[in-house]
């Protein structure tokens, strides 16, 4: 149960965006991999939120403070402006009320980091054209066995950010091999298989 194992690559990228010594809330923290790294290597402190029982146990064993609660209905447990950064890592597509959760993140944190698989990636579009539901390295599930409930493209997600009053400070996009692609590429909604956003409440 070492924290020295290399971080999953998308988490490593998120970690890279978080400043040393800051307070972090990681929503959908899984086994606490990101927070364990931030606590151990960057002197951060904070809290993870997770509902999968086995993942929670691993997080506890790692020494990551983790709170079991339902993101859709219990974000009110967290106080206004109580975290420097709130992370939602590849979780937004699994929650029932993404708009509400994003608004709550904006209330709780000074800065938001949201990572997401892009349903608008060309590979997914091709599959749809062939009459098949999207599946890719970033969306590895068949339609009948997926935790994903909400399907969005980067373009539509960015519209929601604007509507909620979240200003995009950074957008980093990745191709299907996880390699960083151009930051402000107008074609990113087509070319990016996933993306990481840094957002600031306006």
């Amino acid at each position, binding site marked *: 149960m070492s924290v020295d194992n290399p971080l999953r690559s998308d988490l490593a990228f998120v970690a890279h965006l978080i400043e040393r010594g800051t307070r972090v809330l990681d929503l959908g923290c899984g086994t606490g991999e990101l927070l364990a790294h931030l606590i151990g290597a960057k002197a951060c*402190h904070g809290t993870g939120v997770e509902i999968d*029982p086995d993942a929670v146990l691993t997080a506890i064993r790692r*020494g990551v403070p983790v709170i079991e609660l339902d993101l859709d209905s219990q974000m009110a*447990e967290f106080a206004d402006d109580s975290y420097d950064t709130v992370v939602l890592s590849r979780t937004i597509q699994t929650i029932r009320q993404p708009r509400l959760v994003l608004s709550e993140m904006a209330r709780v944190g000074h800065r938001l980091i949201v990572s997401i698989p892009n349903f608008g990636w060309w590979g997914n579009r091709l599959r749809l054209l062939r009459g098949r539901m999207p599946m890719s390295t970033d969306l590895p599930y068949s339609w009948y066995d997926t935790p994903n409930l909400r399907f969005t493209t980067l373009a539509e997600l960015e519209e929601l950010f604007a509507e909620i009053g979240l200003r995009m400070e950074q957008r980093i996009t990745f191709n299907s091999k996880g390699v960083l692609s151009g930051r402000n590429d107008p074609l990113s909604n087509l070319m990016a298989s996933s993306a990481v956003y840094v957002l600031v409440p306006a």
Partner: protein
Amino acid sequence: MPHRDPGSVGVVETQTVRLFSDDQPLVLADGSTLGPVDVAYETYGTLSDARDNAVFVCHALTGDAHAAGYAPGAIRPGWWDNLIGPGRPLDTDRFFVISANLLGGCQGTTGPSTLNPDTGRAYGLSFPLLQMSDFVTVHRALVQHLGIARLLAAVGGSLGGMQVLEWATSHPDDLANAVVVAASSRLNAQNIAFSAVARKAIMSDPDFRDGDYAELGVNPDRGLATARMMAHITYVSEDALSAKFGRTPQGEAIRPGFDVDFAVESYLDHQGEAFLGRFDALSYLYLTRVMDYFDPFADTSALAGLAKRPVKFLVVSFDSDWRFSTQHSRRIVRHLERAQLPVTFREIKSPWGHDSFLLDGAQYHATLTAFFDRALEEGL
């Protein structure tokens, strides 16, 4: 023999130590003094050379020092035996576990039915009213007596969890980790109402005699048994009672009357009767009153000490607990988390209600194991 079970700590005898004397009495939170004070306690496992593996177990309302193993000749083990022993979550091959009867109790530690050396009679209602911090003061004296400067953890369920919360907030230097299970940081009206009925049952028993019953050679059996019967209902869930008894008749067929017609009535009768042999009515009054008034976060600076010396908290509730529901635990978590303290919270699924904290549900024990193992690895 059950104590030969490899997971058991075996045969254990309760010890008693005088921690406060007439000359050096216990100073209570309200400024009054009490002495002498004797404390009954047990320990399990071995204190490490570095004295860094001690875990203090705080018991609930009607618990005692005998948390694990078997008293000489006993068939049933201590009340938290499934937690404490070789290979169990509090693995006595690695942890040194301390369990003490609390102040005001009736299982070896000084309480209202102890003889007052000044009068040669039991204290009765002249015993001072206590606060949660008084329990902690006595626990701390025991820890000091055992030569331990800092605990790796304190753990408790229900009233035990409330003691742990008080301890961690008032003396954060004393412990590195705090485990608060099925507890509350402030009883609500319903909780106080149940306590009130229990106390009413005891005090309105003609044999209560203004608390001087022992002196007069009687005991408020009916009141105490009734109090226990009612409280016991609140310790189990509706589903658990239904599953266990349903509407099963007691005996062959129900002949309607005012006797014990249903199995659940017989069960409650038994709970009340069994309680009389091991618990004192005055202790019941004094200890429930402490719970009623406990409200540590009412003091807005309550967490100031913890901010300087954070303790790692684990807060656990059970979804079927309606005595101290998950809302009680969430309130504790909210206060701690908002003070930026490291706090872990789980609501465990369990059908058994409040009593779940005494049982060995797989997720519950796995959670405690993960937390304690990490605590030991991290050390003081």
